[in-house]
């Protein structure tokens, strides 16, 4: 049943909306103060707070260590970039081998499956030890002996297995009709992959890809167990000298300085891609 006249005016509705909005702002403000303020108060008044502060947040040790750590962090950044590039190439290759059935590649495909299973199933730290200390003991000519390089290879092997699964999911999410359209245009299967299927697959898996990038960026610290003086290693040396954990916190800040802008950058890139295509696809740009 509909009434022939309206009881509420436009002004009434606008006022109600404003009231609702004011109430929401008030609730979120109060809950933030209560939760964060309560938590902070609880920590600051804890009996062990002065000890915690001395051990983890010492301004003296922070100032003393940050310079050395930051300059060692440059090695992390370079390592990360080189390893990441290797991971992307290896992972894409593995994903392509596993996704597309070429009879000739059957043994390679089998090998790729085993590789992915093993590399994902083994703790990364074990792989770093195995490659870093194992390869030099073999005493084979032509194999690298630089511990930094070997550590990088171990990480690249581990992460290429993870990232290949991400790529594979992306490749399988591209509808077969896209490949058919590319072939119908007279493209070779290789051209169809390069120009039509891989670009679409990559775009779709950008968020999980970035996730693995960030994980890799932190795991570069694992190379420290082999000896190379990257940021975490340098922080540990300071820690041993000072009996103080603040240098580790300083190293953590260095990692954050890279990962947070990286995340924001990719978020913005995706947002722009969605805007360009005029569709707010919840699953990311196509």
């Amino acid at each position, binding site marked *: 049943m509909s009434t022939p006249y309206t009881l509420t005016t436009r002004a009434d509705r606008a006022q109600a909306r404003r009231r609702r909005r004011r109430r929401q702002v008030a609730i979120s403000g109060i809950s933030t103060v209560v939760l964060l303020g309560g938590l902070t108060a609880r920590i600051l008044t804890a009996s062990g707070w002065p000890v915690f502060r001395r051990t983890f947040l010492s301004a003296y040790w922070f100032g003393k260590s940050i310079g050395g750590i930051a300059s060692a962090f440059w090695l992390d950044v370079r390592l990360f970039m080189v390893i990441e590039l290797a991971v992307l190439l290896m992972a894409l290759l593995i994903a392509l081998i596993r996704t597309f059935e070429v009879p000739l590649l059957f043994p390679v495909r089998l090998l790729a499956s085993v590789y992915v299973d093993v590399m994902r199933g083994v703790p990364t730290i074990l792989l770093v030890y195995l490659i870093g200390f194992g390869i030099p003991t073999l005493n084979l000519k032509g194999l690298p002996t630089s511990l930094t390089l070997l550590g990088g290879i171990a990480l690249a092997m581990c992460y290429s297995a993870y990232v290949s699964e991400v790529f594979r999911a992306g490749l399988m999410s591209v509808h077969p*009709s896209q490949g*058919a359209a*590319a*072939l*119908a*245009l007279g493209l070779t299967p290789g051209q169809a992959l390069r*120009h039509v299927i891989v670009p*679409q697959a990559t775009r779709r898996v950008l968020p999980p890809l970035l996730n693995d990038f960030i994980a890799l960026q932190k795991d570069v610290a694992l190379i420290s167990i082999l000896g190379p003086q990257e940021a975490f290693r340098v922080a540990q040396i300071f820690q041993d000298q000072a009996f103080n954990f603040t240098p580790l916190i300083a190293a953590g800040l260095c990692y954050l300085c890279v990962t947070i802008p990286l995340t924001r950058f990719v978020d913005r890139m995706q947002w722009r891609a969605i805007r360009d295509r*005029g569709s707010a696809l919840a699953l990311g740009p196509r």
Partner: protein
Amino acid sequence: MSVPEVPLSDATGAPAGAPVLQLRGVTKSYDGKDVLKGIDLSVGEHEAVVLIGASGSGKSTVLRCIDLLEEIDDGDIFLDGQPITVPGLDPVPIRRRLGLVFQAYNLFPHMRVLDNVILGAVRGQRMDPAQARTAGLALLDRFGLADRARDYPDKLSGGQQQRVAIARAMLTRPRALLLDEVTSALDPELIGEVLSLIRELKAEGMTMVLATHEMSFANDVADLVCFLEDGRIVEQGPPEQIFSAPREAATQRFLARLLRREDPDQPLVRG
């Protein structure tokens, strides 16, 4: 905007008298199910052959087999008199001589409209990119889409997307255009713009094979209508005969079913 005229059909290379496309006893099965049970078909120069029939009768499979997207089980397909289904023959150069347009457009969503249109010419035919862009823009302009060249496909209406897909298939000047139910995915008000474009191409002498559910359009554009049922061509003939005086009971049943579904007071073939 002044653009060079783009000729749409290419009348070279055919031995005199040979049909552009010929199918002889083509069979195809998927997982033990026979989809095509021996198709014989001949498409002459400048001819439009229309395939009609219920969903699942094999219309799309015929087109996909001609474009070598499916490997046939038996029979032969000839393009300009040359067999193209010989085992071991590289399908890529043959596909470049044909154009296929899909029901769901299948445009590449990550490429702008113009890049969609020129991809086959640039990567397949190795045409100079600048030249391909000029030709692509000219073709888009002819199709009334010049102002959408820099847009991504999903900003376009369905009818515009399908016209882009036709332009994409046409830029390489195929010997024959294969159109697979190109209006089936469109909203009713968008069908007209696509059909009138196809009529135009037909008027210019483009050789084409179409699968369609649009009977009045089939009546308009076809030189030959083939009615498919269960993987066979049950009846073929000029549209006047198929639509006004079908000989086979199966054809009569199919057309009568269509007639009942539409307004029973209307003639089957709308003007």
